[in-house]
């Protein structure tokens, strides 16, 4: 009995070493997607053999078996559900592109201040500070609108919205003309509801918010075209 047991153990050991050698050998071949799959599969097989024979799982009582199986299964659950996130990030934060896209520039310093950290902040509109140079938009008021309404999507880039500060994305969109851009915001466009879902805002408010986002992305704002969009 002893001799047979020892021979069995030696056999298992040789099998494990063989699997190790196979694993290393296979890594020298280029099998495409099969490479990582096979290495893990062979490792899992080795693990199963160790658990079954060296850790006596084959003759264990049911509850320890369940405990061991649960450990592995829970790990698979964790990995699987997390991958539902990573495998479905189809937009600019997709797997493989966790780094910022080339051409993305940070907003100019001071362009996106955070008034919420100032004491006594009140959402009532403040006196617009004089904006430098001739601009067509009231960016101070637009900033307030942006923080209250637009930041929900344009802050993180939800649903494909161009992020405030993403100069490349906004430059692309200004090619159609800033007025068209603002009209899209007023009337709704793709995933964006009309006026960002806030019908109580005036068209001038929306106009200012768009202007603010352009300004925060480091884009020079054009003069007002002269034609009013709506009588205020």
């Amino acid at each position, binding site marked *: 009995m002893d001799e047979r047991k020892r021979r069995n153990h030696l056999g298992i050991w040789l099998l494990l070493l063989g699997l190790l050698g196979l694993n290393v050998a296979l890594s020298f071949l280029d099998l495409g997607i099969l490479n990582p799959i096979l290495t893990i599969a062979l490792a899992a097989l080795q693990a199963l053999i160790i658990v079954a024979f060296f850790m006596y799982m084959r003759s264990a009582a049911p509850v320890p078996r369940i405990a061991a199986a649960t450990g592995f299964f829970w790990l698979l659950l964790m990995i699987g559900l997390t991958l539902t*996130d990573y495998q479905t990030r189809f937009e600019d934060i997709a797997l493989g592109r966790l780094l910022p896209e080339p051409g993305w520039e940070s907003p100019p310093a001071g362009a996106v201040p955070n008034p919420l950290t100032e004491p006594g*902040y009140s959402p009532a509109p403040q006196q617009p500070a004089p904006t430098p140079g001739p601009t067509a938009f009231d960016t101070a008021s637009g900033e307030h609108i942006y923080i209250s309404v637009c930041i929900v999507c344009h802050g993180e880039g*939800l649903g494909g919205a161009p992020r405030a500060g993403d100069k490349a994305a906004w430059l692309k969109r200004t090619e159609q003309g800033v007025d068209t851009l603002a009209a899209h915001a007023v009337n709704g466009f793709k995933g964006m509801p009309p006026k960002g879902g806030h019908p109580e805002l005036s068209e001038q408010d929306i106009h200012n918010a768009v202007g603010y986002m352009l300004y925060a992305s480091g884009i020079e704002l054009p003069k007002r075209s002269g034609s009013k969009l709506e009588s205020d």
Partner: protein
Amino acid sequence: MTTVGISLRKHYLNHDYSLRSWLTTIDHKRIAWLYLVSITAFFFFGGAAATLIRLELATPAGDVVETETYNRLFSLHGIAMVWFFLVPSIPATLGNFLIPLMIGARDVAFPRLNLLSWYLYGIGGSFTLAMAITGGVDTGWTFYTPFSSLFANGQVVLAVVGVIIVGFSSILTGLNFIVTIHKMRAPGLYWTRLPLFVWANYATAIIMVLATPVLAITLLLIALERIFGIGIFDPKVGGDPVLFQHLFWFYSHPAVYIMILPGMGVVSEIITCFARKHVFGYDGMAFALLAIALIGFLVWGHHLFVAGESIYAGVIFSLLSFMVAVPSGIKVFNWAATLYKGSVSFETPMLYALGFVGLFTIGGLTGITVAATAVDVHLHDTYFVIAHFHYIMVGGMVMAYFGGLHFWWSKMTGRMYPDVWGRIAAITIFIGFNLTFFPQFVLGYLGMPRRYHTYPDEFQLLNVLSSAGAPVLALGYLLPLFYLLYSLRWGPVAGPNPWEAKGLEWQTPSPPPEHNFDHLPVVTEEPYAYGLPKRDSDAARG
């Protein structure tokens, strides 16, 4: 049982009064007391932080503490309350004390491991105290990267090391409970005859064992990053901060079920006793506990809806989050059905249990509200979420804890507390709690963000209401401290079963002898075999 009798009889408390006997005890009942004292200390520690928070928030301007200090206060409040009070509260105190008694065992499976758990708690607690004394952390109890790993300048390493150590305490306790319940039940105590309190702690223990290790590795990675510069969540090298959130919440969501399931077990014990009725749907109740534990592991992504998680994953997690409410709903309905046509009386433990059912329901329903992805976009990181989880943690769990303490106080100490004061405290807590936290639902809906110590003027009224409730709540919590301590010396001596409750723990004297039972019990009847006739279907099953 006369006063003379109790002073002559040796039991687990009076057989040795030395400090050394307490610090080297392997008696599960004494270890429960060690935990009780420790977690009470941390409860008041975290409560002190909360007091300062509510004091600051009574006015819109940041005039009581500075921003930095405020950030450190709410971080300390979260860390102390979650890991050093709520997670161990019922399992380590009532669970440790009662589980061997309820299953007819002499102790837990690994008594020395049990003591080690308490020492690990103490060591972890020391690290946390050290962190607090040397300035604290301003990362919030959630330690989000890359702020916590790269930019925060507080005592992050001390904090995470303290939490990792207390996490091991948790794992060992869970391990102990699982083995104890599997292996040491008295003859005749089949799984289908277990009290729901035991089932609840069993489900809790499974979560502790499976979830806490992931917290340990996650926080360890932060510690490694800060000490050794290993940059796993550093965006500059391609790391993903959202991955930290996945790992963190994989533990922290099941952790909230660690915190609530034992409370549900306590409530089942109390309601059956004070309605004098068998619990409605025992099988469903036990199944619901396990279902909550299982599904609770699958919902963590709902904390990441607006963090940058893919929308498709958000849909999946939202659906699963709706599903986890179903077993909780089963339990609430079954408690209500247990009360129906019961012979209900309103002693102190029952007041707490009924409070739990109502407040937990509100908390649970508001959880479903934020589980809807679209709604969460508006409500995330507002006071709505804070109100939601305080309704469950405080309105639910802390009330269950107090209810359990009062229910089993006579068993643990051999004394009764004055029930009038008990009821006054329970009602005070209920009123103070609602006054403190209900306005926060409205505040959150109106858009007040959490973790801000200044706010726009129009939020002040609701904040003042909330801060006015806080001292009422605090008074409610202080009262038991006094009358429970008073009862230890001057309370009337209690017999083995003053509530005439069912359960093996009531078959032994109050306080129990060191070895729990003079004669090892054999179980022959169903649990909760209170007098009222069961329905035909139950009677047919016998």
